[in-house]
């Protein structure tokens, strides 16, 4: 007896629930997460070193968590700023997930932290799919990576709430076409702000910090078109997915077979399949 069952479950539902909970928990204590995404070598750590130092000088309580496949070098660099820093070794995993982040914050994140910067694993594909419970998602690209980077990684740049160009000190040398880059960003994420920085020259220093602090103070972060969607994640409240938001991701679905609004589809599906599969 083969039975067709209409599950309708978002694959990343567990992570999404975790992220929502973490965001709410942190908000309640006055902390926001800033999630930094880029290719390896774009300059996340260098920029962060500078911004953390600035925050410390301004007396703004910040902390940083950096994820790396295998080494602790970034944490050592970031810790020089004097703010609390934690290294997470993902042991080969190409992205952080909300649950992992939450677990790492327990017993570590100082209670009064306003901004927690998370340097995600250097990768523009995988981390883009995982909400970490951040309130500001930042995609970075250095001037050496080509103006079409946003088109090559549309999900990463399309979901960003702030785009940071790094290594502007060498922009001229490498012939960085700022207008083309901006146009490409606008194509996948109309309305998102693009800021230009250089950790080496100090250009744009404090911009990332300012934007993050504004969000922590209640300013509305940019809502990307790609994030403002009516697909399963948001339109099914009240439908199958509502169950998962109530916590018991999978508990509810077995019931769905005999109970709620799914029942017609199931009954029909089961009947058809039963016929089809009978020898």
């Amino acid at each position: 007896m083969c039975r067709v069952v209409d599950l309708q479950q978002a694959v990343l539902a567990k992570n999404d629930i975790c992220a929502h909970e973490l965001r709410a928990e942190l908000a309640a204590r006055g902390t926001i997460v800033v999630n930094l995404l880029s290719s390896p070598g774009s300059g996340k750590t260098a920029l962060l070193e500078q911004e953390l130092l600035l925050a410390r000088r301004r007396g703004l309580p910040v902390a940083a968590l950096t994820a790396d496949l295998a080494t602790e070098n970034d944490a050592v660099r970031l810790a020089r700023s004097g703010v609390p820093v934690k290294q997470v070794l993902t042991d080969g995993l190409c992205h952080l997930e909300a649950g992992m982040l939450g677990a790492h914050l327990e017993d570590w994140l100082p209670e009064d932290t306003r901004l927690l910067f998370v340097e995600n694993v250097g990768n523009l594909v995988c981390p883009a799919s995982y909400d970490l419970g951040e309130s500001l998602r930042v995609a970075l690209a250095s001037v050496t990576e080509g103006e079409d980077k946003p088109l090559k990684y549309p999900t990463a740049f399309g979901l960003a709430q702030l785009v940071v160009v790094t290594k502007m000190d060498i922009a001229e040398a490498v012939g960085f076409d700022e207008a083309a880059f901006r146009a490409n960003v606008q194509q996948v994420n109309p309305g998102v702000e693009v800021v230009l920085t250089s950790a080496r020259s100090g250009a744009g220093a404090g911009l990332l910090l300012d934007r993050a602090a504004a969000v922590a103070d209640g300013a509305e972060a940019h809502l990307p078109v790609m994030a403002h969607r009516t697909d399963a994640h948001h339109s099914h409240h009240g439908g199958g997915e509502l169950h998962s938001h109530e916590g018991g991701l999978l508990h509810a679905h077995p019931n769905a077979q005999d109970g709620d609004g799914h029942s017609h589809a199931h009954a029909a599906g089961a009947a058809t399949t039963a016929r089809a599969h009978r020898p």
Partner: protein
Amino acid sequence: MHEMSIAMAVVGQVEEAAQAAGATAVRSIRLQVGELAGVVPDSLAFCFELACSGTVLEGAELLTESVPGRARCGPCADEWAVGMPPELCCPVCGAAAAELLAGRELQIAGVCWEEGPVPAPTRERIPEER
């Protein structure tokens, strides 16, 4: 490559649902994958096979349905296929899309599984009646 994580999440979710429903073997899974979900279907299929081994999903077929990205404009109500790379400004009036209607799905739509030896009264009664 997060396709392995995705594949494992799919397997885990279906496994749990199958267990709760008393299913003994999963034959196929229908998965909707949006163009903008950031998942490579081929590599997902490869990972899926690995992730299934040793579970109730062993040998299950993954039926992926690609969902094209579509967006809608607020001012002129135009709707368009966003393409790849996506164009999220309105091709008619140039305004930013009001919303992405489809394209980011990563959704288990349905499964087909065996529900095991159902205590089927009809099957037992028939021989007796004969």
